[in-house]
């Protein structure tokens, strides 16, 4: 890909979920590791919206947290604008932080209830010394109007706003350090359906206006379809398919992607039979051998149980399945 803004290479994250040391010694148990993210690699180009989709527990949010630095990576590299963030000195990392921000899932938890909206939005500016005093106040007013609120709202407290308005405030805060890249962790899943579209449209407008790049995390395929230019599908911490959004919805290559798409409610009433998703995501502490999806896969063969499938190139991306040929015939 030409000139990617963010490059993720072989990213791993393991969590230590073992009991306390003393209990382990007495009960003679080994330390237990939970692999939340396994060998994930993808690139995000400037100006695009890359979406990560997957069920609960698939590792979407863990990847987001590693990218913004809330969690360390166990292995692998995260490059932002060509610079490796995993090996960077803290002072350099701090300077880089201005260029990426995050929008959180729950707008009722992501704003400090005791701060005025103006102070919340100005916090990134103050932290990076971009603006102070009257200058910051003008900038806050401008940002509030950019996200569709009134400049007078800066005086109010977060509890005086609805969920959608709070998410607008969170977006204004994310914009206030003039970032290039914004990680959106399920930004609309806590909102009413009627408000979701407004927030998504606002985010698209802002992307056009400021040339933003988004990493968009969601479990809601209809939201992803509206927003994403490219999509990565996660299953049990592994990326099983990456493709352009249109191609993915038209001709999904991986059986898991197909299963997810089949489960989406058919609002067009085309008469398509909706297939429920079968089975549940397995326990990530002891994932199935071979392809982690094989216990739920309709196209499973003996070979699927043997080895973890390597990513194979597809028309617009990749898919990690040894039966891609079969998948393509099925799609037709």
């Amino acid at each position: 890909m030409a000139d990617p803004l963010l490059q993720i290479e072989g990213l791993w994250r393991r969590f230590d979920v073992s009991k306390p040391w003393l209990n382990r010694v007495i009960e003679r148990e080994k330390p237990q590791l939970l692999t939340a993210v396994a060998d994930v690699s993808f690139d995000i180009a400037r100006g695009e919206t890359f979406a990560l989709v997957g069920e609960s527990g698939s590792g979407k949010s863990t990847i987001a947290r590693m990218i913004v630095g809330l969690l360390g990576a166990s292995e692998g590299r995260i490059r932002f604008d060509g610079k490796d963030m995993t090996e960077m000195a803290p002072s350099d990392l701090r300077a880089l932080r201005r260029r990426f921000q995050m929008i959180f899932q729950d707008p009722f938890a992501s704003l400090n209830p005791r701060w005025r909206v103006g102070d919340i939005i100005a916090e990134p500016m103050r932290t990076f010394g971009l603006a102070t005093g009257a200058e910051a106040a003008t900038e806050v007013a401008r940002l509030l109007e950019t996200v569709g609120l009134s400049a007078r709202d800066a005086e109010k407290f977060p509890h005086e706003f609805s969920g959608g308005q709070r998410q607008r405030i969170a977006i204004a805060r994310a914009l206030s350090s003039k970032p290039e890249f914004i990680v959106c962790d399920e930004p609309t899943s806590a909102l009413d359906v009627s408000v979701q579209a407004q927030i998504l449209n606002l985010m698209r407008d802002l992307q056009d206006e400021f040339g933003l790049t988004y990493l968009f995390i969601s479990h809601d395929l209809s939201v992803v379809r509206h927003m994403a230019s490219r999509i990565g599908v996660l299953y049990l911490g592994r990326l099983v398919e990456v493709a352009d959004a249109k191609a993915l919805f038209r001709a999904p290559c991986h059986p898991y992607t197909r299963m997810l798409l089949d489960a989406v409610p058919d609002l067009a009433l085309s008469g398509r039979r909706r297939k429920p998703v079968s089975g549940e995501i397995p326990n990530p502490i002891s994932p199935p051998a071979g392809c982690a999806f094989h216990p739920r896969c309709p196209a499973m063969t003996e070979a699927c149980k043997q080895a973890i499938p390597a990513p194979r190139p597809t028309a617009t991306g990749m898919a990690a399945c040894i039966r891609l040929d079969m998948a393509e015939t099925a799609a037709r």
Partner: protein
Amino acid sequence: MNRIARAWDSDLAYSFRHSPVAVVAAFVALLIILAAALAPLIAPHDPFNPASLNLMDGFTPPMEPNAFTGNTYWLGTDNQGRDIFSAILYGARISLFVGFSAVLFAMVLGIAVGLLAAWRGGWVDSLLMRIADVQLSFPSILIALLIFGVARGVIPPAYREEMAIWVLIVAIGLSDWVQFARVVRGAAMVEKAREYVQAARVIGVHPVRIVLTHILPNVMGPVLVIATIGLALAIIAEATLSFLGVGVPPTQPSLGTLIRIGQGFLFSGEWWIILFPSIALLALALSVNLLGDWLRDALNPRLK
């Protein structure tokens, strides 16, 4: 003006106006605090000035003229002819000063330890909380006595009397910080996991700034509750220590000292010397405690 109007309309003020116990308790507490603060203006005598004392006035019963001098005292006098009412005003002053200072000391120390434990987690958290556990396993009065004893050994005799009150404050404060540390740690760990703290971390705000500007204001509610209840406990602790004779020196009697002096005359008929200081201590501790109880219920979202 706007701020006052908003405070009057707040949930807390509403709950206060609709709780008769809280209103009465606040009235009593404020009355005692004001009387103690204005003691030099209100008190008819200065109990610290030996020149104004007349030994002939000793053991005057309340509201009766003294047999020798003919002076009448509202609440009577003690063995040295000290007016009990004045002594209570000045005594409450010392009790309140020690109580407030000790709670403030315990609060600052407890908040610092609690925030550090919650933010750093891991072994720092374990170490600090185990220290707290060990301290909790002793009665706090024992710890205060221990600190008092150590201080007596360290401070030269010439300074002992004037340092006594500060030693008392440190002793009570050090025996009381654990409550604050535990509550702050628990609340701060909840706040630390909230998304607004994570948002500040993503922005790159300095950790000390996050703890002080984001987490601390959000854990102050429960801290205020235990500070109020802790004030009542500190006043009682001071009285206990003074009663045991290790508190403030007899030249500056606190309520506890007055009770100890009065205790000597309990069986010889001079009941007023111990009764009135005890009532004052009871009224002060009870009203502050009731205020703390009300504040705890008013700030508890589950009871609304």
